[in-house]
């Protein structure tokens, strides 16, 4: 992965080698880790199947240990079935999928951290739902996961993918940025459009603090997965429409780092500030075994 540390370098590498962005990400990682492209592909394909299993295994009756999470995706599904949703069937299905995964995580189900457990719903929500709606084959979805991983790798190098370090912008923000670029690949966009979508998505979530109630990965995490997924959808659409981010992706990532460094520690996963410090947030004490 040391072969690129910016989106600009990743795109240049892809150009130079004449390989698509996803393939450039895969080959760079294989060289670095000493694994074969085939085994890398198998690992990635397995991540997709774990995402799908988690999505299908959702049970609206399950609750988290704290009792704070569970059942909301079920409510969303009922609402979609009523046909009244403002955003229409596809987008509300993405919302339901993001809630399902977030709730699965809160209820100790098996998920794929993407890039973290708290933000695990964003990427599968948009990829699984859009791929299904548009009958996109699995191989292309796996390729899109490589694109997401490449964007995440750049963010991790230039800034952070940890709420404790840079706030929620680094978790939900990074997930949205990765998912936006992945969606552009899914829909046949160019490398420039992927990078642009990544920039657009993260820009919208800069400054987001990490303020989990009771220090638990539940409130606001589960519902922020919806925010991340919706931001990814709109950013991919804007990018494919030809709308430019005036600030390039790499500079957006650097801005996130700067903002994270200035963020007070009470707003970086300590559960001491923001929503966690509200009167209601404070009343949610941690359960005991």
């Amino acid at each position, binding site marked *: 992965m040391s072969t690129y540390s910016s989106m600009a370098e990743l795109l240049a590498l892809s150009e130079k080698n004449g390989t698509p962005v996803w393939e450039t990400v895969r080959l760079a990682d294989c060289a670095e880790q000493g694994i074969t492209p085939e085994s890398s592909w198998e690992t*990635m394909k397995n991540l997709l199947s774990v995402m799908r299993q988690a999505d299908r295994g959702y049970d609206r009756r399950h609750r988290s240990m704290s009792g704070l999470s569970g059942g909301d995706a079920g409510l969303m599904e009922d609402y979609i079935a009523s046909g009244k949703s403002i955003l229409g069937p596809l987008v509300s299905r993405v919302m339901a999928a993001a809630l399902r995964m977030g709730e699965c995580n809160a209820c100790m189900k*098996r998920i794929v951290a993407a890039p973290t457990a708290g933000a695990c719903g964003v990427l599968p929500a948009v990829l699984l739902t859009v791929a299904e709606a548009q009958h996109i084959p699995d191989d292309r979805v796996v390729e899109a996961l490589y694109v997401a*991983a490449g964007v995440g*790798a750049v963010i991790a190098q230039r800034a952070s993918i940890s709420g404790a370090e840079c706030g929620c912008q680094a978790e939900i923000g990074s997930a949205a940025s990765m998912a936006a670029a992945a969606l552009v690949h899914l829909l046949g966009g160019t490398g420039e459009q992927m990078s642009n979508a990544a920039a657009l998505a993260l820009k919208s979530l800069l400054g987001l603090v990490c303020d989990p109630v009771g220090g638990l990965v539940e409130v606001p995490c589960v519902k922020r997965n919806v925010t991340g997924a919706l931001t990814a959808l709109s950013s991919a659409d804007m990018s494919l429409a030809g709308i430019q981010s005036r600030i390039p992706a790499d500079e957006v990532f650097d801005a996130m780092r700067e903002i994270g460094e200035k963020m007070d520690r009470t707003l970086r996963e300590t559960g001491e500030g923001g929503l966690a410090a509200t009167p209601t947030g404070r009343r949610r004490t941690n359960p005991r075994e």
Partner: protein
Amino acid sequence: MSIFDILGPVMVGPSSSHTAGAVRMGQIVRRLVGGEPVRAKILLAGSFASTGAGHGTPRALVAGLMGFDPDDERIPRSFEIAKERGLAFEFGTVTLRDAHPNSALITAVNDRGEQVEVGASSPGGGRIRVFEVDGLPASFSGEVPTLIVRSDDMPGYVSRVTGVLAAQGINMSKLQVERSARGGRALMVIECDQRIPYRVKTAITAIEGIHKVTRLNPGEESK
């Protein structure tokens, strides 16, 4: 860092540090005590103590002690499974100075009555770091092949142990040696470039004054 640190790990939620990392901690204690743990006393510190229960940290630690991996769907039921398997456990809290906020001090006893006390932290991403074994300071993650040797402090034992590795063509990348007092208990932690084969363990165990040899080969944690 690999792209599968960005997408991944596959894990049982909700938290990579408080759940997946806690499973890894339990696994390392299992390896260090050797055999089948029958009793464990787990003291939670810092954020593990304050938010652990809501993250399933206690269940994750017990799951790791039984050798489950972080993606094992039995983790939420680990307490019940431990009862069936005859692993008795108790929890408490402890204040650890200078330790990372996500830490635990775990004492485990195996079916042969052997005991180990391990202090470990989970800084994030499901990674862990052991900072203490049997009261002696240490620092290792188990992400590279690692050999942990507990022994008496005797003249020349370090070179005898490293001699075994050299004879097997295994390159050391890091060597830590600690002792309780001159002639007291000693702890040696050796990180290596190659997988550590079983015959290394046998050869080192045969050296006089060596009490316990543990091999940690990444990807073989739960065996």
